[in-house]
């Protein structure tokens, strides 16, 4: 069944199909959320929020985007909102973020990283936190979610050129951060 037909059936109140949709896309939503917020419990809450939002929005869903694209957008927005909320809650979060050194960042192990790459993935996620939101999202969608440039353009509602530029800048900035870090630690 294609995604448009799925939406039509969901609108008709097919609860079994809603369960299928959750089962089919929960890993995609969770993996995206955990890569952004870098916390398992928060990612789980965001995943639930995304599917509740889907359930509530079915009547107004216009079907202009694919269901997967819509789910990606909602997940990204909710994850970034969650992150901002958490940063605001931390007293003096902004001042702290200016003075936080690279070494002071939270240690996060992505559950999906291959065993031989676990340590490198920890460094990758620390460096990811230093990127601006748009570059970080493009990098996560491409490198972690394995989406193509076209898909990322559709999810981020950007042109293909803009996505290419975002990814190039993201990689350049990440490389710069990593080289600085390695130079500092190998001295």
């Amino acid at each position, binding site marked *: 069944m294609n995604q448009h037909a799925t939406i039509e059936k969901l609108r008709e109140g097919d609860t079994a199909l809603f369960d299928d949709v959750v089962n089919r896309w929960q890993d995609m939503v*969770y993996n995206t959320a955990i890569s952004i917020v870098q916390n398992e419990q928060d990612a789980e809450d965001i995943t639930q929020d995304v599917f509740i939002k889907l359930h509530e929005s079915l009547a107004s869903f216009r079907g202009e985007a694919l269901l997967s694209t819509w789910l990606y957008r909602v997940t990204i927005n909710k994850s970034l909102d969650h992150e901002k909320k958490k940063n605001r809650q931390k007293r003096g979060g902004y001042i702290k973020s200016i003075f936080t050194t690279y070494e002071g960042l939270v240690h996060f192990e992505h559950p*999906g990283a291959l065993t031989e*790459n676990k340590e490198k993935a920890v460094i990758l996620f620390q460096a990811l936190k230093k990127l601006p939101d748009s570059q970080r999202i493009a990098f996560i969608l491409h*490198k972690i979610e394995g989406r193509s440039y076209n898909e990322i353009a559709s999810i981020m509602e950007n042109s293909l050129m803009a996505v290419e530029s975002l990814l190039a800048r993201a990689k350049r900035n990440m490389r710069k951060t990593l080289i600085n870090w390695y130079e500092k630690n190998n001295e």
Partner: protein
Amino acid sequence: MKKTMNNMDKNIHINKMADDVLNSMDHSNRATPQPFLLTKLHARLLNNSEVTMWDRISSVITRPSVSFAGLIFIITINILIILFNIEKEGNAGSNVGIITEEQDFSVAPTTALYDIENTSP
């Protein structure tokens, strides 16, 4: 010369390490949520659907901003009513005065039913 070579080697090594980190999530698996996500989701949806109209209204009314605005509105309405009444009373008082003066200088015949001083038939 040897030092330059060492620096170059070091740079190559660091660049390689940075590349390895950048590619560390290639071919990784997707992270999966805890089991029973669907059950938790159904429970939350059920809780959401049990929210009645009154629950929604009370949740809106009890917001500090809404209740404060409501309080200000009620106080303003009360002040306006009081001011309006004071003005109205003032106007009513002055009307009474005018009527009394009109009656004092009135030359109109009395309309008494029994004119006891008039003896003529």
